[in-house]
């Protein structure tokens, strides 16, 4: 029993970092421009697919592919922002919600037409690390490390570079930032790009652990919402914490009840937090 508990908790904990990374992307975009990005799931899928295609066609190591995926995510985010989000950024929330939902449908439609709904599997196995009874696959371990590394980079970027500081300034008060001479449009576009970058990188890391289909981004998008609410919407560190909590829950719940109950408990918690502490554990932005 204790062995099972420790094994499950470790699995969940490691996966939690990746969940957190995906949620951070959503959280960042909300924090800076108050847009709920419904194209978050497909962007996660873009990360998965890019990794897969690079691996299958060019034989590129999936962990090296992360750099390419980050670039693709950033560019994709910029494109989405410029074409779909920028025009509705000051409109009521429903407009941006619909705009990003349209982007979501377009990307999924393209994927369905080009790749179909088949399951893709990156056949790259690293085996597992065994310490006595504890058994952790290296892919999970590396994914967690990757997620931590990206988080650290993001933190350093936001707090110690000039553009990072402008992002925070715009998030804090767009008008005031503009008065200080910060080009807010560029900063907004960049933030959207960064959010997409995080989502794509998370997708890439997930694809090294699990097989996926073009629709696999969807469940992670939903998880991201739960995590953001849990940790405080618009608070990237809260997103990481939320991710860890969700990961641990996913490891813990199946020990006592059938796995099908996991989403019930997860979304139950979602509602509970919304009712009891709507700002999330670490408070909103």
């Amino acid at each position, binding site marked *: 029993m204790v062995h*099972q508990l420790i094994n499950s908790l470790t699995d969940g904990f490691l996966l939690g970092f990746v969940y957190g990374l995906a949620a951070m992307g959503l959280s960042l975009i909300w924090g800076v421009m108050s847009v709920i990005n419904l194209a978050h799931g497909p962007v996660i899928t873009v990360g998965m697919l890019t990794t897969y295609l690079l691996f299958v066609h060019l034989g590129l190591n999936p962990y090296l592919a992360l750099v390419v995926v980050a670039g693709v995510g950033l560019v994709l985010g910029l494109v989405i922002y410029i074409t779909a989000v920028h025009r509705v950024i000051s409109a009521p929330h429903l407009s941006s919600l619909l705009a990003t939902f349209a982007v979501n449908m377009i990307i999924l439609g393209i994927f369905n037409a080009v790749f179909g*709904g088949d399951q893709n599997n990156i056949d790259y*196995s690293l085996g*597992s690390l065994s310490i006595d009874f504890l*058994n952790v696959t290296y892919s999970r371990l590396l994914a967690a490390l990757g997620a931590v590394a990206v988080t650290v980079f993001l933190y350093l970027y936001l707090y110690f570079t000039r553009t990072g500081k402008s992002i925070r300034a715009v998030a804090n008060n767009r008008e005031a930032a503009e008065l200080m001479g910060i080009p807010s449009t560029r900063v907004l576009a960049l933030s959207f790009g960064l959010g997409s970058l995080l989502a794509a990188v998370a997708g890439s890391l997930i694809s090294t652990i699990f*097989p996926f289909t073009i629709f696999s981004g969807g469940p992670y998008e939903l998880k991201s919402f739960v995590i953001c609410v849990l940790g405080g919407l618009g608070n990237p560190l809260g997103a990481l914490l939320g991710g860890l909590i969700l990961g641990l829950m996913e490891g813990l719940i199946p*020990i006592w009840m059938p*796995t099908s109950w996991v989403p019930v408990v997860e979304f139950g918690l979602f509602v509970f937090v919304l009712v009891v502490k709507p700002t999330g554990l670490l408070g909103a932005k």
Partner: protein
Amino acid sequence: MRNWKGKIVLILMAAGLVLLGCGQEAPKPQAKKAPAAKPAAEKPAAEKPKAPEAEAKPAPAAKAGEKTVIIGFTSSTTGKFKTEGGRQINGLNLWMEQVNAKGGIKLADGTMVKVAFKDYDDESNKDRVQELYTRLINNDKADFLISPYSSGLADASAVIAQQYNKIMITTGAASDSTYKKGYTLIYQAYTPASRYLTGAVDMLAKLAPKSKKIAIIYEKAKFSQDVVNALKAYATSKGFNVVLFEGYDKDTTDFAAFINKIPPKTDAVMGGGHFADTSTLSKQLYEKKVNAKLFAFLVAPPEPKFAEIGEACFAIVGPSQWEPAAKYSAEAAKKEGMDWFGPSVQEFDDSYKTKYGEDPSYHSAGGYAAALILQAAIEKAGSIDTDKVKKALDDMNMMTFFGVTKFDTGKDNHGLQAGHGMVYIQWFKEKGKFDKKIVWPPAAAAANPFVCPAR
């Protein structure tokens, strides 16, 4: 202009409604006809008065020179059943090519009917299946039907076939429950699910007689649930202790929660579902270094593609409807006192390899066999009339390269496969290459099964 178009649409809709009405009425007279066919089976003389009416149909067509019989089905060329469904279609296409090359199927009056397929992609989607089978029957005028791959889809299509009074041979569909619904025109080519994994329990008992604990992890789908429920009952009756019995949702990719639940010192892990999930489960069991004496899973292991998961496939056992090394032959049929029909195992294997450049899996053979069963029935009936072919199918007791085909004709399980048996394969490793061999039942085995080494 608009009015004119509007009227046409209205007329078409009205015509559609009338047609629908006719379509729905059709099963009623059939329901009366079906029991009538049974006494006919006992007294052949009673069949005669019906004959002119039945023969009236093919006759005018024969005059026209070439008659084709249309066989309709949907194929899962996209979606989660792509691998298995694709192979099934390969088998079907090979059959059509060979039959038409020989001039077609011969009827009683000497005419040869060519075969034409009509098929659509069902996207591995249940809702699409019902829509498309209705279309196959109403628009494409299919004479006979073959089911799509998987029990769920086949079950969905069977309703439509029965409703419109069409014979359907199901293949790639092993679930028992479809045949417990009182259908009279649905015939199963595969060994039913209830006999899928029971042999693995016998195998475990022989390989490691001290074994006690079996963990069962299965996909929550019609077919795998039928299999594991029968498996659990059988294992318990043989004195085994089922220590874990849990289902996963169909799109599961993370099996960590299930794997962590397997109690220590479990002797065997069994279950699975379809190809994608089962290969992922096998891979994660290997990565997590789960040790057991026997791993027996559904569907995926017999597929040649299973070897793509590398080291993780080693020692895994899987039930197979058919293997290229199967020992069915005309001599064996003679010994059993039944008819032999169609190509030999070798001939099928060779022609498949020549056409597709890969080894046939049991899904490929199942596709071919379904059409072959239909061909045998049509030839025996000497007609493409539904009632006559139905009688031929009810009476069928034959051996083909696929094995024995005999249908349950009892009221409760009509159409359930009663003759066909399973073989079990295990993955071996020789000189760094993975290879599957038949290891069970002993009579059909090409190699001895072995206990999975420590991981």
